[in-house]
């Protein structure tokens, strides 16, 4: 019999084995069929634990102690393991690499259905349909080993959806995707939610990406349910109780003193337009048309910290990852390297660090080049933190208290701080260049702010910093200049305001709300701009629409 609630928790408490405190405490909530629910919270707040409980991995797979009840489609997770719940729940966890178990995409999509004893005919049909729905039909006969991260993520999502589950559980599905692929994936999820009636329980750090699609937002704090409401209510609550969860558009409105707080760019622009506060981009820029981006001329000088001259990288199969890239970094300069998945960002960093040699062109650095790869855990091979790096470096990184801990027991943010301290201390003196590959993957806002401060301090010592990132908010906060790679070559290279204020995808949310007006990239800058407009309008046009009228907007 089909139950009303696809997920129901009643005073559910869970403690991991050997943990001193519960990861989830007295959690009570329900999720109806067809709802799209976003779970928000800082790192360690219990989001992933809730998701793992909803798919039955907790307590069956992880062990530990559970009390209260958690029912999935009326089945208690303590009596029914993930294999049984797989009939109702499709799950997509963070790392797509370890979620693909078969060798071809077709076999991967069919795998779950075969396990449930589907005959071959219906299995083949379900595979074709889910592949078409997700736009991966061209990949069906490709080996999974050859897929990119974004393709793997889609295939893993397809495998979770092939059996048409009632509930789809997703743990940061866009964390490895560029803004374009992330937006596509979330659009896809919303379409599946609307057309198939699949309930979605999604945990995501970049709330600005998914809030517009959500019916409800749950906020977890220290394993407890701190808030449960609509996205609009969530933003109002977060503004008062959890500032780090406020989206950039809402923060912009907060800084400008405007209400209601918008859940997405469309709503924000609608409110501003209604109030006559949407800046005229041409006027704001002081020109008749948006400023044209010019590629920098790279005049190599003796002062350059890093200089790449017309570098190419061609793979053995003939594909070019980089096509004649020239890039110069001055000492102390902070540059963000952006672009889609597969644009060549990681290859460029590896060339700059000397890990791979360019097939053509040359790389020169004025001193040591330090590279922090995507997974900081790859640097940590000892049993104790203090064995990885010296005491002075630990103190400088704020890690002195963790010296006796095992590196694998550290949180993601702590691991990254340790790995950063390690690469900075690897040679004599500070490095000439620091390269970072996707340093904010799966990172919450608070840790991102810490990283921005750390990078500013490194650059202040004369080290040039090059950060490859998909995160426009990070680029805006930490870089002086942005280089945008497309198909292995720079398609834009200029001051951060020029590049990030004018893009559709590679732009901060503030810039997209304000259409790039005034080069405002961060909420505080945008808020100041809008306040200026409010003041100007108040002087010129006293009759603004009342807030009640704005709140009634659809």
């Amino acid at each position, binding site marked *: 019999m089909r139950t009303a609630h696809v997920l129901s928790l009643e005073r559910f408490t869970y403690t991991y084995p050997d943990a001193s405190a519960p990861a989830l405490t007295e959690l009570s909530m329900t999720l109806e069929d067809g709802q799209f629910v976003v779970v928000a919270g800082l790192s360690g707040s219990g989001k992933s634990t809730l998701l793992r409980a909803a798919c039955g991995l907790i307590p069956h797979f992880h062990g530990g102690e559970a009390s209260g009840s958690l029912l999935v489609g009326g089945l208690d997770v303590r009596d029914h393991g993930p294999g049984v719940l*797989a009939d109702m729940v499709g799950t997509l966890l963070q790392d797509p690499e*370890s979620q693909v*178990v078969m060798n071809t995409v077709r076999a991967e999509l069919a795998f779950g259905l075969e396990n449930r004893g589907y005959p071959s005919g219906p299995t083949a049909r379900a595979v074709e349909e889910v592949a078409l729905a997700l736009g991966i039909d061209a990949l069906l006969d490709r080996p999974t080993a050859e897929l990119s991260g974004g393709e793997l993520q889609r295939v893993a999502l397809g495998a979770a959806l092939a059996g048409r589950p009632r509930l789809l559980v997703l743990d940061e599905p866009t964390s490895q995707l560029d803004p374009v692929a992330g937006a596509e994936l979330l659009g896809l999820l919303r379409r599946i939610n609307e057309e198939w009636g699949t309930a979605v329980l999604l945990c995501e750090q970049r709330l600005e990406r998914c809030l517009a699609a959500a019916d409800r937002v749950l906020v977890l704090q220290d394993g407890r349910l701190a808030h449960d409401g609509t996205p609009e209510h969530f933003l109002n609550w977060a503004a008062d109780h959890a500032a780090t969860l406020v989206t950039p558009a809402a923060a912009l409105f907060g800084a400008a003193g405007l209400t209601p707080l918008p859940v997405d760019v469309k709503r924000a622009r609608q409110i501003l337009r209604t109030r006559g506060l949407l800046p005229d981009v041409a006027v704001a820029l002081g020109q008749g048309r948006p400023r044209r981006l010019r590629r920098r001329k790279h005049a190599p000088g003796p002062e350059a910290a890093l200089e790449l001259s017309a570098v190419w990288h061609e793979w053995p199969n003939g594909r070019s990852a980089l096509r004649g890239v020239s890039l110069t970094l001055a000492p102390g300069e902070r540059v963000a390297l952006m672009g889609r998945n597969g644009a060549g960002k990681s290859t460029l960093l590896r060339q700059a660090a000397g890990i791979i040699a360019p097939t053509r062109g040359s790389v020169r650095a004025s001193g040591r080049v330090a590279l922090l790869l995507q997974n900081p855990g790859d640097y940590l*091979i000892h049993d104790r933190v203090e064995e990885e790096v010296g005491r002075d470096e630990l103190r400088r990184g704020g890690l002195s208290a963790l010296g006796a801990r095992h590196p694998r027991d550290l949180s993601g943010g702590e691991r990254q701080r340790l790995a950063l301290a390690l690469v900075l201390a690897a040679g004599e003196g500070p490095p000439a260049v620091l390269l970072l590959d996707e340093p904010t993957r799966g990172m919450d806002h608070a840790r991102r702010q810490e990283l921005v401060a750390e990078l500013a301090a490194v650059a202040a010592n004369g080290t040039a910093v090059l950060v490859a990132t998909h995160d426009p908010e990070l680029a805006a906060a930490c870089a002086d200049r942005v280089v945008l790679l497309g198909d292995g070559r720079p398609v834009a290279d200029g001051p951060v305001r020029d590049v990030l204020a004018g893009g559709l995808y590679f732009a901060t949310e503030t810039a997209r709300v304000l259409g790039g007006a005034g080069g405002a990239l961060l909420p505080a800058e945008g808020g100041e701009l809008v306040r200026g407009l409010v003041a100007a309008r108040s002087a010129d046009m006293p009759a603004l629409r009342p807030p009640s009228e704005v709140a009634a907007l659809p």
Partner: protein
Amino acid sequence: MTYRPGASALHAARASVALVYCAALVMLALAADHPLVLVGALVAVLLAGSLAGVGAALRRAARWWLIAGLLLTALNPLINQGGVTVLARLPDLPLIGQRDITLEATIVGAVLALRLVDVGLAFALFALAVDPDALLRAVRRRSLHSALAATLATRLWPLLRADSTRLAEARRCLDGDSRPSRRERVLVVRAVAVGALERAVDVAATLELRGYTGAARPPRAPRPWSRHDLAVAGAAAAILGLAVLLLATGFASLHAYPRLAEGSIVQAAALALSAPLLAALPFLQRQGIAP
């Protein structure tokens, strides 16, 4: 060295039949004593690989097996002191004393090496041209737990390879051009091993989430035998027949000790020629295979 869908009779044949074909090539190598027959078996494997479109990958794999084979050829006369035809008498060496290098032990070493290369390349052909997913599906009908272990192992291998590459890359970021110390290398290997446990847990969690552990025996999916199934099965049966002939009749045998005594060279040559011919036969049928 991983399977990729391809356009050949071996790829088109059902996985169980392709497995038997590769197993027949292994059996032939194990059954043969005579170097000529073993060379024939080697040519058979290389020819099959080339006709299946995996020749380049097979040749890459051959380099490693040849190195192992040469090592075996060199070691056997040092370890095995059988045989009466002394080619060289080594001086008194520490630990092993004085050793005679005999023609017989050298020939036996070469035969063992040739057999090793044959078997290794037949396995490589299997890995390159037989769809492991389809094979796993077939095995699951017989033994679920073996299939589970095989799934974990096959999925873990590429993950661990990727992990070790990343860890080594991270070390290079820290060490620059200087070579890592032996202790560091041990620590990296240990980190990969520890990571293997985590990876195994992740893959096991995924298998749980896909309902693998609670899966019922998959339904039988009857599939008519294609001409490629029949051709590859026929070739496999014929090659197995050769192996049985060698074992049962002692054709083309080789007795090494105390003195070399080989069977009829004509028989050996005939068998050596027939092995590649039989292995290549199914590939002549290209109807229904994309160019």
